[in-house]
Each structure stands twice: as structure tokens, then as C-alpha cells.
């Protein structure tokens, strides 16, 4: 063992103590165990007198051959699966309880450790009881009389010796087990020989339990497998205490598997052999090993074996105290390891003094078996499939500013829900108290197996849901998925079975809006055709399916929606993923595919929600696409969608009514005959809108109190003093912090400065002119630090840290740390290629941002300095593009 140099500040042995008897990660140079040592220590943990109890219990259920299969193959099967995550402990040098902080939350894991200690540590009281019985029998063989109360004294002696060994630390435990375990295994061999020689060998080999018949033999067999599964899975809580000190993943893993699966199971089988032999000799199946030994073996061997088996309980007590004290350290960080060992000793002592632990042992086992399988399943799925073998250690150790595992007040609701669900599933299949089987089909998989599988599947599927994934994977930045979105993937049709739900959801979401769809010239129109819709808000996605009812359609959608709602769900809803304002040929190919299979393609060509309820300029490329596809075009000019929930304040205004004009804009012949410019002009006219004008026309009053709140985001420049970025909003007022001007927003969407009425779209366009002038005079430049967040696919954002954004006459220049090439780089978006940009006013609660896209990535840019307004940047982008486009033309 490499001794770490302590400093005055660290106190004597401070670091070493924190590593070996605490929760600090053990570095590679702190590893002390090879396979053999780890196997011996874990065997010491697993071998105890309760193995005999388990063996004699199994002998009441099944014959010897089935017992052998269950005890070895059944146990090893379960161990091979649930012990696999132990490699995380070896890799990071941490206990599983540190990893479990990510599954239950930093506070939740404390609750779990205490529950596990409470329900698992009574095992050790049983150990002490059995030690006391063994010693009593041993002394009885020598006819040494024992005074009253000696049983309790002996039980407490076991606690004290085990606690002292654990108190001494890992070296003492290692040396104890190095001596004890090989001797115990030798004794085991001797006991088997005694068993097989004390009765004819075929009595044991051909043993079948009394009263066994074929009708219930299958149930008994499953019960025996369940007993083996439950027996080994109860070690899950302490499974990593030793492997975390191993030098290789394989040695840590197999030490756990074979420590229990071979050593532990070997002693289970010994217990069974002795029980069967006792039954043959005495007519009674006894599970007290001391009685078995005294009855069956030759005196000398019997005494030696008895003594060693008795001391095996001390070894188990010592290793168990060490493992569980280290586990408790993760909860009670400030309490010393030694104090925790003593506390555990006191807990066991109290149970010994109580004296009824053996009577209630079944109840403890019942509770623990229901919890361990889901716990093991959660760990397995989380390690391999959810967190994919990476943990945010700083969050796990609760460093300041690292809160990925804080979840809901320190508790991960999803983890606990799955744990409770898995436990209930186990109880729904089989009642271990009454022995009643509730579901025979699931029972064949065993209650523990079912609880394991059920919890694993539930947790895995839940984490597939985007909102759950975002909740559970707040640490996604440590191992993000970097694979770019597959743009070429053929979009499926809208799922037929999902359609009723989609329509129902759309009806619910537009309920109370008196939505009216006015269809013009649609008679006889059949797919394929293109639908071009105005884009005001998310409500557009609820209105469109209702307007197209009963047809299915495919929707062109930005990748961000795929990430938010989940790729699978979005594809089932018929969405084609793309990025905004890029020339995506793969998208055109997919659109063609939709049209060729006689589908309906819905596109919102503005590609961005309306900032102030007015239409954006329609790109000419839309007309070119119509010309290319040679199919009819329908336009959807929606009204009220912006007024209901404008981008700058998404609170729904309940007074708003919705209306949609669905117009057969171009038939097939017109598409063929008209020029691109003519098509563009017609579509531009049909898709133009002004929400505030429509509101006035409809005399639709919006009485929502905070109706102007957020309006300072699109109206960022004071109309009176022309100062930029000084606008604020509150209630129904827009205020300039520079000149003090207060603009009141009336119920019909007009702004009033005193008696002067200002029409919001006019103010918006006035700002645009100001920006255009700024560019013309050469004064416009944006040079700002930004936070860069990349979205390469539909799975996760990747934090790229701080970047530098410049926007001037050359277009956009973004310098940032690119995770793909692992160094800083500068990306350029020339004006000619940037028709417009996507803007957000409060993106997922992080404030304003703009996005810039390449074909395989979208960069979300959040300002880190003053002087950033998404709308102003959008104006500048659009103007510079129009100038460059006109020049190039």
C-alpha cells in the first residue's frame, strides 16, 4: 500500500483515512487489491452461518441436483448481471453510493443508505446469534456449564471482536480474511466429506424433499431460484466497497461474482448436505450447523470445523461493519469512520439484547428483497444506458456550482418512482409473507427477476422521454452525444395510430378559441400538395392539423423541437428535421420524397415566429421549390395565433379568437405556367398578415393585465429619445429608462404616449430603418462575448463555453472552442448566405439568443455583455443580405 504523505494541515493519516475508510475516490496508486485478495475479503463477507440456513431452506424445496443448479448457476447468473456496474467503482475508485447520488439525488441517497442499513444490518445480529449458539454447543461438547445470560454475552462478544477488526481498518480486515477464508473453505471441503460419508452418498445425491409431488415441483423450483436470486442480490448495498480498491475492473467484478457465487454458494450447498444427512440420521432437518457437526462428524474434525465456522461469523461481522461504515460515510460526511463502526456495533448489540431478531428475520428479508432488485436494476441501467459510464464527479461530491444531481430539493423523483414501482411489482407477483402467488406467468421469471427487469425497462423508457431525460441528465455535458443529426433519414408518414391523439390534442389546445377555418377553392383537391403557413406561435402546430383534417401531413421542423419533444415522437408526428437559414439539400430530397409518395408537405416559410405579429419577407427559394415540385399549393393564413401568445410573453390571452384562411393558392397548371417571381408574389400576398390590424378589425379587446410585459424585447429602441436597449416593460406599460417616457398599451394593441397613438408594427419597422441607416453610415458593428451552446443532433446540447461573436459588413464571425476538433476555431457566415437569423427572447429561461447554423450543427448564442438585442441583429442581417443579394444580382 502506498502511504500518502500527510501534511500538517491534513492531520495524521487524513488523506489515507478518507480514501480507505471514507468516500474519497481511490486513485490508481491507492489500489491495494488484486483478484485473490479481493476474492478472499469478499468471500469473508459472504461466508457466514446464514449460508447453512439458506442451504437447509433450499433442501425443503427441491432435490439435491436442482439445489446445486440453483445455488451455483442461479446465483452466478444474477451476480453476473447485477455486479456488472461494479466496474464503475473500480474505474473511478468510488463506492456505488457515490454513483447512486445521480440516481436518487444528493439528499435522496442519504435516505436510501439509512433504509438499507436499517433493513440489512439485522443480518449481522443473526450472525452474532449464530456465533453464540455455536460457542454454546462447542462448550457443551466439553460439558462446560454456562451461566445464565451467557448467550447474550457470546453474541455481544462476536459484535465486539468484529467491530474491533473493522475499527482497525482495511489492513486488519485484509489479513484476517487472508487467514480465515482459506481455512473456512478447507473446512467446507471437510464438511462435505463428512456429510457424504456419514450417510450413503446416494441418499444425498438422489434426495427429494418429503411430500414433493410433480404438481408443485415447478413452483418449488422457482421458489428455490427466487431464494438464490434474493440471497445474492442482498449484497448489492455493499458490493463495491472492496472492488473500488482493486487494480483492474475484471478482478473487482469477478471477485464479487465468485466471492458470493462460488464461495458463498459452496457454503449454501454444505448447509444443504448437512441438513439432508441430518434428516437421514435423525429424521429431522436441522439448520443449526453446530448441531449438524456435533451429530455427524468425528469429534476432532467436528470441533475444529465448529470453531472455524463460529469465527466465520466474526469475519463477516468485521467486513460487513467496514463496508457499511464506508457506505454511511457518504451520508454522514463529517462523522469519522471509527464512530460509524461503533454506531453499527451498537445497533447490532441492541438487536442482540432484544433477542428476537431471528423471529423477525423473515420480515427484514421480505422488505430488503423488494428493494434490492430495483436498486440493482437502476444502477445497471443508469451506468450502461443512461449515463453511459460517465459521472459528473464534482456534482456527485457536491462541489459549489455543480448541482447536476440536486434535482428536486436533493431528490430524484424519477429514481424513487422506479424504485417504488419495482418494489410494488415484486409484491404484486408474490407475497413472501403468506407465500401466495398472484401472477403465475410472471412468477416463472421470479419476483426478484421481474422486479429487476421491470424497473430496468421502466427507468430506461422513462429516460427516453425528453422531459425526463433533461431532468435526469443534467450532467449531459460530461459525455454528450456528438453524432450529427441524420438529415437524410427518410421521414415516415404521420403515424396513423397517433392521428386521433394528435387531433384530440389540437382540439383541446384550441378549445375556447372559437377556431374557424375558412376554406376557399378546395373542392376536389387531393394530395400531393404543399401547404405554406404563416408562423405566429406554437399554436400554428395545433391549428394546421385541424385545418387539414382528415388528411395526414409531414411538417418541416427545426431540430430544436426534435430535441425538446424527442426524436421518436417528432418523427411519429411526421416531422422532417432541418436547421434554420441553411441550404439543406437533404431537406429538399426529403420534401420530394413526401410529394412523390402523394403526401402533404407543410412548411412555415418564415421559419421564425412573428416578433410583432407581422409577416416576414418570404424567401424566393420557396417559390423555386414550388416550381421544382410541380404540385398545387395551399396557403394557411392564420389569425389570432400571435395575439393569443406572442413570442415575447407566452402567457395565453384567453379572450383571443382564432381564425384561419385556407386558400387554394396555385393549381398544378399555374405552378407550371407562372414564373418563379409571379409565384413568389402571389404567395407573399396570400401569406401577409398584420395581427394588430386584424385585432382592430375584429374589435377584439385583450384585457390581460400584463399585456405589455416583454414588449421591450422586440421594441428595444425608444421611439421618443431613440436610445437603444433602455426599454423596460411592466403590466400594460412600456417604459424608457433613459428619458422616462411611458407608453401605455390599450386593450386593442395600440401604444399611447400621452395622447399620441403609436402602432406597434410601425415602431418595429421604424427600428428596422434605424438599423439600416446605421449600416449605411458604417456605424453598425456587433462585437460581443457570447455563451455558445451547440445542438448537433436531436439528443442534447453541447456546452462550448465562451465565444466571441462579431457581426459587421462581412457577416457573422464566431470564434469558440469547437468540441469536434478540440481547439478554438472561427466560423464565418457571409451576408450573402444569411437571409435572416433565428431569434429567441427567452430561450428555455436563459434569456435572449440568436442561432447560427451549419449543415450539421446549430449554435445558440447567448450574450455575456450588454448591447445585444436579437431583433436588432435580425434587422441588420436581413438588410445586409438584401444589399449583398441585390449587388450580386
Amino acid at each position, binding site marked *: 500500500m502506498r502511504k500518502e504523505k500527510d*501534511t500538517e*494541515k*491534513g*492531520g495524521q493519516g*487524513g*488523506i489515507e483515512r*478518507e480514501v480507505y475508510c471514507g468516500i*474519497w*475516490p481511490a*486513485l*490508481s*496508486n491507492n*489500489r491495494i487489491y488484486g483478484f485473490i485478495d479481493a476474492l478472499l475479503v469478499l468471500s469473508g463477507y459472504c461466508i457466514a452461518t446464514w449460508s447453512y440456513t439458506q442451504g437447509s431452506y433450499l433442501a425443503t424445496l427441491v432435490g439435491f*441436483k*436442482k439445489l446445486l*443448479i*440453483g445455488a451455483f*448457476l*442461479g446465483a*452466478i*447468473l444474477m451476480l*453476473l*448481471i447485477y455486479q*456488472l456496474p461494479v*466496474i464503475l467503482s*473500480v*474505474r*473511478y*475508485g468510488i463506492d456505488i453510493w457515490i454513483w447512486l447520488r445521480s440516481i436518487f439525488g444528493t439528499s435522496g441517497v442519504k435516505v436510501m443508505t439509512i433504509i438499507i442499513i436499517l433493513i440489512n444490518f439485522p443480518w449481522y445480529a443473526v450472525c452474532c446469534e449464530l456465533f453464540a449458539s455455536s460457542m454454546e454447543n462447542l462448550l457443551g461438547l466439553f460439558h462446560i456449564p454456562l451461566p445464565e445470560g451467557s448467550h447474550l454475552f457470546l453474541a455481544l462478544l462476536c459484535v465486539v471482536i468484529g467491530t474491533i477488526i473493522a475499527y482497525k481498518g482495511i489492513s486488519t480486515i485484509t489479513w484476517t480474511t487472508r487467514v480465515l477464508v482459506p481455512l473456512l473453505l478447507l473446512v467446507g471441503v471437510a464438511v462435505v466429506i463428512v456429510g457424504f460419508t456419514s450417510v450413503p452418498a446416494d441418499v444425498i445425491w438422489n434426495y427429494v424433499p418429503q411430500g414433493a409431488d410433480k404438481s408443485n415441483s*415447478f413452483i418449488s*423450483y*422457482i421458489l428455490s*431460484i427466487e431464494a438464490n436470486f434474493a440471497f445474492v442480490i442482498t449484497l448489492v448495498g455493499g458490493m463495491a466497497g472492496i472492488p473500488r480498491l482493486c*487494480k*483492474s*475492473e*475484471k478482478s473487482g*467484478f469477478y471477485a464479487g461474482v465468485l466471492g458470493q457465487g462460488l464461495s458463498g454458494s459452496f457454503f449454501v450447498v454444505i448447509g444443504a448436505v448437512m441438513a439432508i444427512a441430518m434428516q437421514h440420521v435423525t429424521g429431522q432437518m436441522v439448520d443449526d450447523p453446530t448441531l449438524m457437526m456435533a451429530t455427524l462428524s468425528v469429534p476432532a474434525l467436528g470441533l475444529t470445523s465448529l470453531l472455524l465456522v463460529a469465527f466465520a461469523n466474526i469475519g463477516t461481522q468485521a467486513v460487513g461493519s467496514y463496508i457499511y461504515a464506508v457506505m454511511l460515510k457518504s451520508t454522514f460526511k463529517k462523522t469519522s469512520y471509527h464512530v460509524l463502526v461503533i454506531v453499527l456495533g451498537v445497533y447490532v448489540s441492541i438487536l442482540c439484547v432484544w433477542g428476537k431478531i431471528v423471529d423477525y428475520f423473515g420480515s427484514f428479508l421480505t422488505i430488503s428483497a423488494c428493494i434490492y432488485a430495483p436498486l440493482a436494476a437502476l444502477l445497471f441501467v443508469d451506468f450502461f444506458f443512461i449515463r453511459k459510464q460517465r459521472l459528473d*464527479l*464534482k456534482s456527485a*461530491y457536491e*462541489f459549489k456550482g455543480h448541482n447536476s444531481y440536486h434535482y428536486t430539493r436533493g431528490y430524484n423523483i424519477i429514481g424513487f418512482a422506479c424504485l417504488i414501482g419495482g418494489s410494488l411489482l415484486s409484491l404484486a407477483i408474490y407475497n413472501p409473507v403468506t407465500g401466495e402467488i398472484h401472477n403465475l406467468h410472471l412468477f416463472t421469471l421470479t419476483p426478484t427477476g421481474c422486479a429487476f427487469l421491470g424497473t430496468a425497462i421502466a427507468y430506461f423508457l422513462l429516460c427516453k422521454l425528453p422531459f425526463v431525460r433533461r431532468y435526469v441528465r443534467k450532467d449531459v455535458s460530461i459525455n454528450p452525444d456528438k453524432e450529427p443529426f441524420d438529415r437524410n433519414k427518410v421521414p415516415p408518414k404521420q403515424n396513423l395510430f397517433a392521428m386521433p391523439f394528435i387531433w384530440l390534442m389540437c382540439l383541446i389546445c384550441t378549445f375556447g378559441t372559437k377556431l374557424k377555418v375558412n376554406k376557399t377553392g378546395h373542392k376536389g383537391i387531393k394530395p400531393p400538395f404543399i401547404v405554406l403557413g404563416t408562423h405566429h406561435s406554437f399554436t400554428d402546430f395545433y391549428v394546421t392539423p385541424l385545418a387539414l383534417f382528415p388528411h395526414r401531413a409531414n411538417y418541416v421542423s427545426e431540430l430544436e423541437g426534435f430535441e425538446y419533444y424527442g426524436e421518436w415522437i417528432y418523427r411519429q408526428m411526421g416531422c422532417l428535421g432541418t436547421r434554420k437559414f441553411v441550404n439543406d439539400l437533404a431537406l429538399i430530397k426529403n420534401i420530394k420524397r413526401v410529394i412523390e409518395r402523394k403526401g402533404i408537405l407543410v412548411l412555415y416559410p418564415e421559419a421564425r415566429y412573428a416578433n410583432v405579429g407581422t409577416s416576414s419577407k418570404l424567401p424566393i427559394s420557396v417559390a423555386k421549390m414550388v416550381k421544382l415540385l410541380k404540385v398545387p399549393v395551399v396557403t394557411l393564413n392564420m389569425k389570432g395565433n400571435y395575439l393569443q401568445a406572442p413570442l415575447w410573453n407566452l402567457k395565453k390571452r384567453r379572450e383571443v379568437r382564432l381564425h384561419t384562411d385556407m386558400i387554394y393558392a396555385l393549381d398544378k397548371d399555374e405552378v407550371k405556367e407562372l414564373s418563379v417571381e409571379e409565384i413568389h408574389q402571389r404567395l407573399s400576398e396570400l401569406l401577409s398578415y398584420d395581427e394588430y390590424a386584424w385585432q382592430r378589425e375584429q374589435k377584439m379587446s385583450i384585457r390581460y393585465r400584463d399585456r405589455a410585459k416583454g414588449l421591450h424585447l422586440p421594441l428595444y429602441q425608444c421611439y421618443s429619445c431613440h436610445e437603444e436597449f433602455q426599454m423596460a416593460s411592466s403590466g400594460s406599460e412600456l417604459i424608457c429608462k433613459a428619458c422616462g417616457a411611458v407608453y401605455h398599451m390599450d386593450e386593442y394593441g395600440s401604444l399611447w404616449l400621452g395622447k399620441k397613438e403609436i402602432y406597434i408594427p410601425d415602431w418595429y419597422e421604424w427600428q428596422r430603418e434605424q438599423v439600416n441607416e446605421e449600416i449605411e453610415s458604417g456605424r453598425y458593428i456587433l462585437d460581443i462575448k457570447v455563451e455558445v451552446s451547440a445542438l448537433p443532433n436531436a439528443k442534447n446540447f453541447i456546452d462550448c463555453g465562451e465565444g466571441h461573436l462579431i457581426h459587421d459588413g462581412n457577416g457573422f464571425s464566431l470564434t469558440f472552442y469547437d468540441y469536434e476538433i478540440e481547439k478554438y476555431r472561427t466560423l464565418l457566415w457571409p451576408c450573402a448566405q444569411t437571409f435572416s437569423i433565428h431569434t429567441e427572447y427567452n430561450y428555455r429561461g436563459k434569456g435572449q439568443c440568436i442561432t447560427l447554423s451549419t449543415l450539421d450543427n446549430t449554435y445558440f448564442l447567448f450574450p455575456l455583455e450588454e448591447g445585444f438585442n436579437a431583433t436588432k441583429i435580425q434587422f441588420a442581417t436581413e438588410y445586409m443580405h438584401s444589399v449583398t443579394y441585390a449587388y450580386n444580382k
Partner: protein
Amino acid sequence: MKMKDYFLEELEKRITIIEKGDAENIKKMTKWDYIVVAVLAALCLIGVVIGAFI
């Protein structure tokens, strides 16, 4: 420096070492090791199923 700060600093150092790849010094389970585990588990499962019929 206070004892608490010292320990925090030491712990952070350890975490940094791990994040920088201390695990490279720990012999990892290879793809073949996982295959062996899967084969062993499959054999055990077959054994358990056969056990029901003997």
C-alpha cells in the same frame, strides 16, 4: 488554510486527476471480457432452465 479547505482542495485534485484519465491506469474490461460475461450468463440461464425439467 483551514482543514476543511485543505481537504476540499485535495478532493478536487483527485477528481481532476480522474477526469484527466487516471482510469487509464486501471485495466479496463475489454469487449471480449463483456462477451465472456454474456456467454457465462447465457450458459447459467440455460442451466437454470434445464434445472426445471430434471
